[in-house]
């Protein structure tokens, strides 16, 4: 496990650097099973930082969320680095952001954290109920110990961790400048059983499923807002000219929105699952991304967010690409 003291020391040291502007990590939230993202600018705040299985958010999202404020005439833009703490899964976002030239490698200081799993709030709420208390947690190879305001409950790891953790292939950060803990062994793998299971459905069943799920969508756009890959100046979804998607909420526009979102993430989604986690109406958004991930892997032998030198999937091709349905 990560020693929080060491983590805070490293953060303090990093924030003290002249060339670091801010640091993104996690801190204890005011309540509940998920930590809060911490965006710090001052070394004195470093003791807020934590890392435990409640640290589910992907801090890489907050790199692109920071607005570039207008620079007053005569001043230089602040080009100091952003330090960011990442788990293995989160680190793939950094890699993919580098592929997409969101920034240069030099613009970030990556503090990597080997991780063996984070808690799924929804699973925790099912197990222990909603809570207004602050929660801490510990995880080992078997169990997760959840401390709900002093009341410690222990549960099998597979019953409470995020699905992404149960198929985690990158427990260690793929990119980091400092590792805040010992590397851990990979303990899970991804066989896309979930996608297989989904595909057993007939087209009618599939649509029935999506009709029900997408009808719930309130188009709060939290899924695209939180996505570390979604940082267009203005998303096509909200553009007026041309207007791809109307603002009215009905199954047609909602479906179009979700297809657009899933399409734009094809070959780019690094499966941090943030989109699904944040959805207030529990739309299983990852089911779309997972399908794309699987197809991208199977058809094009491609995996986003693992190689910063890779060509973007849909901006490249292989003359031998499959074309089985093409007439």
């Amino acid at each position, binding site marked *: 496990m990560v020693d929080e003291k060491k983590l805070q020391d490293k953060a303090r040291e990093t924030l003290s650097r002249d060339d670091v502007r801010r640091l993104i990590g996690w801190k204890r939230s005011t309540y509940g099973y998920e930590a809060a993202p911490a965006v710090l600018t001052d070394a004195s705040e470093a003791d807020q930082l934590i890392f435990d299985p409640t640290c589910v958010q992907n801090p890489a999202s907050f790199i692109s969320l920071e607005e*570039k404020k*207008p620079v007053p*005439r005569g001043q230089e*833009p602040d080009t100091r680095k952003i330090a960011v703490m990442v788990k293995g899964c989160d680190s793939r976002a950094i890699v993919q952001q580098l592929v*997409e030239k969101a920034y240069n490698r030099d613009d970030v200081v990556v503090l990597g954290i080997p991780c063996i799993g984070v808690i799924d709030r929804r699973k925790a709420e099912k197990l222990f109920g909603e809570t207004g208390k602050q929660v801490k947690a510990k995880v080992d190879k078997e169990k997760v110990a959840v401390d709900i305001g002093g009341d410690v409950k222990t549960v099998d790891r597979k019953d409470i961790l995020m699905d992404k953790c149960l198929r985690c292939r990158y427990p260690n950060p793929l990119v980091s400048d400092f590792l805040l803990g010992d590397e851990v062994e990979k303990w899970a793998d991804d066989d896309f059983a979930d996608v297989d299971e989904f595909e057993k459905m007939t087209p009618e069943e599939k649509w029935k499923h999506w009709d029900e799920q997408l009808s719930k969508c309130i188009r709060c756009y939290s899924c695209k807002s939180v996505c570390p890959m979604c940082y*267009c100046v203005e998303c096509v979804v909200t553009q007026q*000219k041309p207007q791809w998607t109307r603002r009215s909420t009905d199954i047609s526009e909602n479906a179009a929105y979700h297809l657009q979102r899933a399409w734009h993430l094809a070959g780019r989604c690094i499966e941090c699952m943030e989109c699904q986690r944040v959805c207030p109406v529990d739309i299983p958004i990852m089911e779309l991304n997972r399908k794309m991930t699987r197809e991208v892997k199977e058809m094009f032998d491609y995996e986003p967010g693992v190689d910063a030198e890779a060509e973007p999937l849909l901006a490249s091709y292989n003359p031998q690409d499959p074309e089985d349905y093409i007439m």
Partner: protein
Amino acid sequence: MVDSLRPKIGVYICHCGINIGSVVDVPAVVEYASKLPGVAVSREYTYMCSDPGQNLVKEDIEKEGLNRVIVASCSPRMHEPTFRKTLKDAGLNPYYLEMANIREQCSWVHEDHAEATEKAKKLVEAAVAKALLLEALEEKEVDVIPSCLVIGAGIAGIQAALDIADAGFKVYVVEKTPSVGGHMAQLDKTFPTLDCSACILTPKMVDVANHPNIELMTYSQLEEISGYVGNFKAKIRKKARYVDFDRCTGCGVCAENCRLAGRIPNEFDELIGNRGAIYLPFPQAVPAKYTIDPERCLQLSKGKCGKEGPACVAACGPGCIDFEQQDEIVEIECGTVIVATGYDVFPMEKKPEYGWAENDNVLTGLEFERLVSASGPTGGKPILGRDKKGEGGYEPKKVAFIHCVGSRDKSVGNEYCSRVCCMYLAKQAHLIRDKLPDAEITVFYMDVRAFGKGFEEFYDRVRREGVRYVRGNPSEIFKKSADPEDHTLIVKVEDTLTGTPLEYESDLVVLGVGLEPRRDIREIIDLFKLSQSTDGFFLEAHPKLRPVDTASDGVFLAGCCQGPKDIPDTVAQAKGAASSALILMAYGKVKVEAQVSVVNPDECRGCGFCVEVCPFTAIELVDENRMGNIVQVAKVNEALCKGCGSCAAACLSGAIQPKSFKDEQILPQIAVLGVKP
């Protein structure tokens, strides 16, 4: 004239005689169109493309103040330029035209009149929906640098270079090998006229080297090319010859003294003759400057040559040998490029059943040319089996020529006909008849294609000279016995005219190998982003009407790099390519595509996906000041962009859009066509 932003659309439905009118209810379409938003005028006419038809449009533009025009008629591939010009003549930007294809894609393909009429209405409505959003585009011209880069100095490159240079323009000729001349210099005689190949080529080779407008770079290679039509920048690597180019007199003393003299197979002689490590590929080579083969030279490859050091250095009077010489990179600018990289002959490794690798008396056509060439290793005598000193050997008694080796042969992946083999084999048969009047000569053929000027007559003549033509495609060629003294080869073949299987005995087999694209064609493709046709040769812009052009503007093709052809065809094409390049340079300006992509720098996320997909390297990422912050955004080089729009489909934010085919122009079309009538 256009003092209003209000779209005023004129819709013109063409009857095309009865071509459209007999199937589509034109008045109904006119009526339908007149009610569409923005439509000010809706008319029909028998032939819109006729002068009165066009005048109708012009008058309406002037009188009604139309600012968009829809012509519903034949395919835009047919008359879009016509009507663009109509608009232009009437003072309206030509890109305010949209066509609805109601002939090729409606009246000619649908029988049911009602359905065809409904479809025509929809097509017109979609055109109107798009027209509402059309934009005026500017047709731009860029200056053309008055110089041409010719790649390859075979007969094609030489001819093209001379023509352009004679017209008064600067030419840079880049040749990979140490001498100009190419394959033609290797040939003995040319068919069907039997001119001495060297005799007619050498003067041109000398001209290329001496022409004041030509800068010749032999033993050089194109490394990089950037820019666009009219404004290319090229980087050329002049490989080190290790011989001072200016001081070398070409006397040849160095080569005589080379420790490896006569011990290295000479590429020019198709490896049947030898050279030294320092060499001139052939006596008439231009420039007549010696070159050291760095891979074979002992001094260069091993660091040591004999006890006394390299003999060439000692022998060279002017002291030209310089083992320290480095490659030199030359940068040039040019307005046009002619690619004349030629061909390679079919590699016999791909057809092992013909025993070429094992038997010295199985020769490719090109090897045979060297064998019978006066400047070749045997001084033109058809002698085989000489020893290393060039002594001994025998004259063949029974010579077999085989057609279509590596051509018209799916098993080796070459479906095409190489076009020259029939005649060069006839010529070679004639040469053997000439040199060995007693030899028995048999030609095995599939078909004899004697289509050129004087070809049939020549073929007749050769047959009359006692050359036997047997219709059959040999399946195998092998040595009759293991005896090293017995040179007899067995050619296993079926005479398909009589249906008899034959085992023809011969002591020289000449293979009519076909022509293939250069093995390293990929390098040129990558440099210029050219495409290949299915046969692997460079793809011309249009097989009929633009045979010397490529999809890359300003880059032209000459000679066999575009496909197999004989010398006169090659020269003709070279002249064609030269003239195409000259058109650009003589006019001095070139129009660039108006329907190019454009970037909205405020919406660009700088991911570079468009840069990656652009086949024309027309997009780059540049710094953009966004309220004091420096961000990277895409920028289109309008001279390079061809408007394909691949960038737009790759762009996530829709920040890059091809003009006339923007998302905002296509989506309304989808909206119209998607809705059921």
